[in-house]
Each structure stands twice: as C-alpha cells, then as structure tokens.
C-alpha cells in the first residue's frame, strides 16, 4: 500500500456527509424528547422518579457507575497495552480514547441529573469536605476527562497537518480548525521528540488517575455500612468490572466503524481476535472477583446480609442476577475461547450481550443493597420499600446515552478515526525490515 493510498483511505471518513447530518438530526430530536423529561423533573422535583427515602440511588447512579466504568478502557488500551509494546493496538487506540472521553464527560452530567436542585452543584466546591468521597470523586472524574482529552489530542496533532494538506474539499471552518489545532506541526525532530515526551508522560499519568476514578467511585459505596457495599474488595471489583465493559464497548465500536467507514484493510480479523482474547482475560479476572464477592458472604450467610444475598440468589433480583453472571460473564468466556466466535460478527454480538449484562450488573450493585438496610424499614408507604424506575427516569437515562453517541459521532467524523501518522511510521518500519 502506498503512503498516499493510506492517507486517502484514512481521511475519507472525515466528511460531514448527508448521512452524518441525518444521524445527528435523529440524535438531536431524541435528545430533545428526553430533555423534556428532564424539564419535568426540574420543575416538579425528584418525585417524578421512582426514588424514595430508602432507595434514594437508582437508575442515575447505576448509569453513572456504568459510564465511569466504560471510560476506563482508554487507559487499558493506550497505556497498559501500549506501554507493554503491543503494536496491533495502533488502529484502535483512538477509538478507545474517544469512548473514554465521551463516557467520562457525560458521567459528570449523569450525576447532575440525580440532583433535585442542580443549581446547588457549586456547593460541592464551596463547602465540600476533604473527608467526603464525593469531593474526591468530582475531582478525579474532572481530572480524568482532562487527561483523556489530552491523550486523544496529542497523538492527533500530526494527523491534523496531514488532513489540512491532503483535503482541499473541506469547509473553511474545518480547515481553520485543523490549522489552529495542528500547532504548526511540520514533523521536525524537535517536535517529534516533544510529542513523544508528552505522550509518554500522559500514558503513565493516566494509569493512577484511571484506577483512582473507579476506585473512588466504588468508595462512594464501600464507605457506607450496608450489606453488599461494605466490602474491602469493592475497589478492585469495580476496576476489573470496568475493563469488561470497556473492552466490550470498544469491540462494538470497532465493528461499527469498520463497516460504515469501510476500514477493512486497517481493522481486520486479527484485531477482533486479539480483542476477543483480551475480553476473555478481563472477564476471567472479573469472574474471580465475583466469586470472592459472593461466595464468601454466601457461605457465611451472616444474618444481617442474608436478606440482601437471598434477594440476589433466589429472590426478587435472582433472574437479573443469574442472567448477568451466566449470560453476561460465564457464557462469553466459554464461547470466546473458540476461534470461530472471535470473528468480527459473532464477537460483536457477544460484546453487545456483555455490554448489556454489565449495565444490569451496575443496577444490581447500586439498587439491591438499599432495599435491605440494617435498621428495619417500617411505618412507610408500601412503594417506599422497592424501586421501579419511572418512564421519566428512563428517558433521562436514554438522554445520557444519546449524548455519548453524539460526542463519539462528532469526534469520529471531524477527526480521522485511525491514527494516520502512526500507521505510516509503523508501515515504514516494517518495510525497512
């Protein structure tokens, strides 16, 4: 493949086509429909949700945990695999970073949607206590969004110059944007070294921050004395679960981008195969933590935790629980061990199931422990004792997914989705050999 062909191939997706506008119009309309639900919640209060005194964290917080989890994949792919010298990740690094930016940015908004009085958000900063994990969480989520944006942007700089030079048909604003963002990149030695240095630092920095973002999120639960939450392994349990969600979402995104941007020559079977093996690995680790998290309390079955555990194993949440554990975790591990299932189409289907299972897993983690507090629930209306999300609540949650899709769509359409500069450098290296 010639250099020119690669550039043309990878830049052809950068086009605000009619299809893109149609897709964005659809997303915008959906967003506005859902925002009407938010308007209802804002004017009437959180009473429009299914949240009550006892179960006061519902769909929103479950979704927040899920979004934070999904965003962790940026760190996994670019840092852990990148720093360990895995070359095959080059075409999917940017996809992972876009997913990280989109989910982390919207996660903050999801928290705001759980507030009855969002205008009081500033109080977290004005009166926030150093002792409160909520302050730590707000700090670390914000930091992770900034670092993910930098990690998305810094490797993009050479590509912006390439795009500026090679595409003459772009609208004026887009060319202007490329010119400003490309930071006068000419590819001289000094610039290459500086960029390498910046990426190196970022790749190391993002690891502790990403670990912290989900560990601190788990502490929001773990520091609360409740059966199901007060567990010492909740931090690693959340982090390993996050890798499962993240890898699944990258596989889904890879498949979609490969199809609609016709990138068959850049993202091909070997990438799906490797990602499949990675998914098996992270699922196995997560399964190991699941066994620890449920087998030990289930074996001891202490009186105060029994109600919660029984509701998961054989009670009101049992169908969801066993679906999540068997269909969402064990079955994918077994299937993905076999090579045919790691082909693009079957692995995407499996990834979708893992993705859905992971979402319901967060729902179980957040909601079911609240139904069984240590002090008995008494003298309250019957609907305070269980939780069912309302249509309004579901619509607002859908809005957050729509926002994620919008961010992913815009970033992947305005900027080349596969790193051009790195692809060229690597192919040159291979040719030299």
């Amino acid at each position, binding site marked *: 493949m010639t250099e020119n062909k690669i550039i043309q191939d990878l830049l052809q997706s950068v086009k605000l086509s009619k299809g893109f506008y149609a897709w964005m119009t659809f997303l915008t309309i959906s967003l506005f429909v859902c925002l009407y639900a938010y308007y209802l919640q804002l004017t009437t209060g959180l009473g429009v949700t299914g949240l009550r005194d006892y179960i006061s964290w519902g769909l929103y917080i479950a979704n927040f945990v899920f979004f934070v989890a999904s965003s962790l994949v940026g760190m996994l792919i670019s840092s852990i695999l990148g720093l360990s010298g895995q070359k095959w990740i080059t075409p999917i690094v940017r996809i992972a970073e876009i997913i990280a930016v989109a989910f982390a940015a919207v996660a903050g908004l999801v928290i705001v949607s759980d507030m009855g009085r969002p205008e009081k958000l500033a109080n977290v900063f004005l*009166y*926030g*206590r*150093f*002792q409160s994990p909520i*302050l*730590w969480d707000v*700090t670390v989520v914000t*930091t992770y969004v*900034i*670092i993910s944006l*930098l990690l998305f942007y*810094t490797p993009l*700089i050479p590509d912006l*110059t390439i795009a*500026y*030079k090679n595409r003459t048909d772009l609208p004026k604003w887009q060319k202007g944007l490329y*010119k400003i963002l*490309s*930071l*006068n*990149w*000419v590819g*001289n030695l*000094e*610039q290459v070294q*500086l*960029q390498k*240095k*910046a990426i190196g*630092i*970022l790749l190391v*920095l993002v690891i502790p*921050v990403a670990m912290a973002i989900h560990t601190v999120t788990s502490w929001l639960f773990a520091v609360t004395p409740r059966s199901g939450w007060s567990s010492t392994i909740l931090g690693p349990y959340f982090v390993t679960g996050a890798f499962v969600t993240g890898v699944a979402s990258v596989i889904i995104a890879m498949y979609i981008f490969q199809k609609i941007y016709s990138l068959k020559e850049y993202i091909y079977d070997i990438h799906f195969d490797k990602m499949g093996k990675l998914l098996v690995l992270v699922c196995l680790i997560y399964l190991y933590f699941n066994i620890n998290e449920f087998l030990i309390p289930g074996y001891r079955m202490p009186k105060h935790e029994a109600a919660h555990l029984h509701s998961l194993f054989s009670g009101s949440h049992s169908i969801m629980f066993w679906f999540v554990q068997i269909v969402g975790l064990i079955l994918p591990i077994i299937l993905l061990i076999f090579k045919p299932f790691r082909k693009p189409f079957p692995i995407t289907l499996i990834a979708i199931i893992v993705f859905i299972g992971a979402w319901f897993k967060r729902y179980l983690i957040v909601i079911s422990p609240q139904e069984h507090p240590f002090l008995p629930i008494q003298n309250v209306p019957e609907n305070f004792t269980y939780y069912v999300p309302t249509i309004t609540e579901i619509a607002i949650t859908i809005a957050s997914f729509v926002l994620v899709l919008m961010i992913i769509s815009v970033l992947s359409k305005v900027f080349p989705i596969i790193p051009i500069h790195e692809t060229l450098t690597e192919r040159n290296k291979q040719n030299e050999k």
Partner: protein
Amino acid sequence: MKNKIFLLILISCFAYSVFSQEWTVPDDKKKLTAPFKFDSEHQKKGEEIFNKTCVSCHGHPGQGDFAKLTPVPKDPASNEYQANTDGELFFKISEGRIIMPSFKNTLKAVDIWDLIAYVRTYNKDYVQVFTETATETSITSKISSKITFAEEDKKLKVRIINKDAEKTASEGVTLSIYAKRYFGWLQLDKTKKTDQNGFVSFSLPNDLPGDSIGNLQITLKITDDSGFEETIADTIFKAGVPIIYNNLLDNRAMWNIRSKAPLWLILTYSGTVLTVMSVILYIIWILAQIRKKGSSEI
C-alpha cells in the same frame, strides 16, 4: 422428666402472671389523697408535665395514640384508667412496673399530684376526695439542718434540729439524699431516719462521676407522713470523681467540618491534586513548545 415438665409449667405460669397480673397497690397507699384541691392551676401544671414526660408512651388522652408496647400503656381518658383511686395512681406513677418507669426520683410528689389533677379532667364523673389539713405549713419552717461531708470515708453526716427555743434534736425524721444527674435525681444510700440526737449518716459511692473538679450537687429531702418530699438543703460537695467530657467535635476528625479535617487527609488530597495538575500544566507547556518549534507555512 417429670421435674422438667413441672418446671416448665411453673415458668409459664410465672411468665403469664407477670404480664397479666393486676397491678396491685397496697391498701394503705390506695387511700392516699392529694394534700390540696385540684384547681385549674394544678391542672395546668399537670398538663405541662404530662406533655413533657408521659405523652411519648401514653399518647394524648382520649386520642388513642399511645405507643404499641406490651403491656399496653393505658390511655388516661379510658374508664379502666380512671377507675384507679388517686392513691393508686400516685403509687403507680411513683413506683412504675416493667416498662413503666418509676418517677419517684424524677418528679416531686407535688408534680405527681399535679399530673393526677390533669388526667382527672378527662373524667366528668370524678369528684375529688380530699381531707384538707388544717395547717399546711412547710416543714422547713419548723426544723433546720446541718450537713457535713467527710471526704476520707465518703460519709455525709446530717443533723436535724427543731427550730424551737431549746434547739432540741429532732428524732425519727425520714431523710433521703439525691445527687443530680443528667436525667433527674439519683438517690444515694437508703432513706434513713434520724437517731435520738438528730443525726443520720449516708455513705456515698467512691465512683460517682462529678463535674470537671469532682463537684456534685446534692439535695437533702425530708418525707412527711403523707409521702410528701420536701427539699430542705441543696448544696455542692466535692464528693465525685472529676470527669472531663471531651467534645468529639473539638479535634480534627473524619466526621468533623471541613476546617477540622485530619491534616494527613488535607495534605494527601491537596498534594495529589497539585501534583497531577502541575503535570497537566507541564504537558500544556510542551504543547506550546511544539507550536513554537514548528512553522505556520505548512
């Protein structure tokens, strides 16, 4: 085996009798009557005491909002309750039973009579039986007391002297001493009577918590024939163990306000945030350098 069954029957009979047994009041106490006429002033005071002390279990009279406990706290407006004589009510409130607390150390006799005056307003048929004593003069006008505290053997010695011309010792006066606690008064030692020289001695416990320097507020009460207690002395003695109460909000702690957060936590949080932020600023500086080293002619 036989023995076991017998024991079981005995235990169940006993358990049954404790909970179902009528609350029997000694005959002499039954006939006790209030030393004053229940007028609106007493009823008003009684209502205040009732709302402060009784309403949480007995509820508001006649509204049936009493607490669901076993045995059931009786509604003061009920016929069953009102069937008690004044003496019976006085005894039951003073002594308490099972979960009904004893109020004899918390309320003064006059308070209990005020309470009875109040609950009787819920009984239209009630006619107060009371024998007006000819002279309702205070005991304190007749006697005087002298209290001394011996720190070495923790004994409180009291001498009661009649306020007559000869200053004779008052024999056979019933006395009790109480120490002030958070909730009401704690009786120390037993109720005792003065000897022929008017002396009585109370021994105090060694481990009674006092204030920061060990001071205790102690009252001496005299009981008259009708069961009325009257305070004849109220003094402070250094008879307790000094206790310094630490306010849990005084020092830096996890549960305190932001300005009193643990130092290590403030340092860890601020240190981490500053470190990460300075690295991010350094990255932005590198990006600025990249721009500087390039050329705008691309």
